[in-house]
């Protein structure tokens, strides 16, 4: 089942309001995305914790409707 990029971005921003989100639909099939999420909320967190925050924002969709989301997270430059 596919999910559109705008929906992914909206869910992430609901949980992480300051996030800058860029999403690429890797195959144009609405099922394989790469997302880069930049948020101040990631500061001081491990990579695992940062990714868990994004997965939390997606509320269980990751691994279900959303088959593949290659994720990269970072903290904004000072």
């Amino acid at each position: 089942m596919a999910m559109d990029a705008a929906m992914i971005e909206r869910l992430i921003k609901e949980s992480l309001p300051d996030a800058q989100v860029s999403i690429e639909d890797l195959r144009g099939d609405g099922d394989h995305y790469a997302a880069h999420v930049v948020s101040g909320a990631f500061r001081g967190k491990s990579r695992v914790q940062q990714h868990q925050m994004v997965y939390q924002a997606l509320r269980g969709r990751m691994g279900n409707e959303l088959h593949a989301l290659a994720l990269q997270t970072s903290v904004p430059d000072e």
Partner: protein
Amino acid sequence: MDITVQDRIRQEVTDAPVVLFMKGTPVFPQCGFSAAVVQILSHMGVKFKGVDVLSDPSVRQGIKEFSNWPTIPQLYVKGEFVGGCDIIREMFETGELKQMLEEKGVSVRA
């Protein structure tokens, strides 16, 4: 005594220094993301134990809950969750993976 899936997983992650929960086996991965991690570990000469989640649906679901992580593969080093495919790939590229493995006393081919 009936041990729960969570107990079994807790045992499994410390069963070997490096444990990869994956789809398929190290020789025949059944998913591109699992294959990518196998390839990285093999390239680094790291010995690891592969746990095929496809052969046991309770482990497939249980490991997601155990790690609070929604996807497979999942890499454990010395009982500690390191990450999924994206994190492992990123850590490999930056050299952090090698550094972390060495710090934990896992032998890595130079």
